[in-house]
């Protein structure tokens, strides 16, 4: 499964606003620290991600890129 919500760990400040708004509840803070010293947000179960973009639209640091399946390429 290709990733839908891709988090740029080094831009993340661990504010958790993405966690607050994710309707699926699949965003969590990682156990490790990034170079800024924050626990970066990450999606644990990509297969449950619907690509709703809530996390990305909430992220003050624009650390999140969201991908959706290309319907034409998939023949749908």
């Amino acid at each position, binding site marked *: 499964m*290709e990733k*839908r919500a891709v988090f740029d760990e080094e*831009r993340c*400040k*661990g*504010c*958790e*606003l993405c*966690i*607050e*708004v994710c309707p699926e509840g699949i965003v969590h803070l990682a156990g490790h620290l990034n170079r800024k010293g*924050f626990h970066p947000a990450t999606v644990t179960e990509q297969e449950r991600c619907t*690509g709703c*973009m*809530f996390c*990305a*639209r*909430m*992220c*003050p*640091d*624009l650390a*999140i*890129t*969201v*991908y*959706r*399946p*290309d319907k034409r390429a998939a023949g749908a």
Partner: protein
Amino acid sequence: MRVAFERPAGLTDCPTHYCPGCTHGIAHRLIAEVITELGVADRTIGVAPVGCSVLAYDYFDYDMIQASHGRAPAVATGVKRALPDRTVFAYQGDGDLASIGMAEIIHAAARGENITVIFINNAIYGMTGGQMAPTTLLGQLTTTSPAGREAPREGYPLRVAELLEQVRGVAYLARYPLTKPPEIGRARNAIRKAFQTQLAGKGFSLVELLSTCPTGWGMTPREALRWVEEVMVPYYPPGEFRDGPEDPGGGPSRKRVG
């Protein structure tokens, strides 16, 4: 897979210095997206204030000027009058706009200056360490209202959108909170309409964004979002206050759209 959401053009790659969870970054994104959509990126000039967004010139990929405290609408006035084909916006906090800069904003509005103002109301002075702002709510703790703002001692919080609503010359006026994606979508539409008002030459436009300052408020970023919803929104009702120049008869112009 195709990209559904990515960092918009109009913002530089520079990571912001804003505190974790501060909604200044969301406001920056909305402006950049709208400017790109409207196709005016190459002729946009922004005026940054004094306050946490003082470094906005590092973050917006437009020609930027940094004005002295509260004077962004005056600087924007000069730029727009000298270069009327440019899209000119001022970006101001509530200490900047509603305190030291109250005269500048009221008179820019009254002159109907054809500029757009993005007003970040986070109910506090963020940059200087959390002092009371004119917009600080009753009961709110700040370093200069340590017992909580009380009307007999510190006066009442100013409602800027309501104040400007009565000013002839205001062509577009709205207020939305940056609390959840749907609200952020409404804020984005309002910013778009504000810039469209300027592009149509209709006059002064302002969008007030209810924002967070988790650091100044002494809250986690998530608590801060809820505080905006529970405490700020009831006192600062969201909606569109004006869309189009005021009826010359002076009748009520407010339409609340959620």
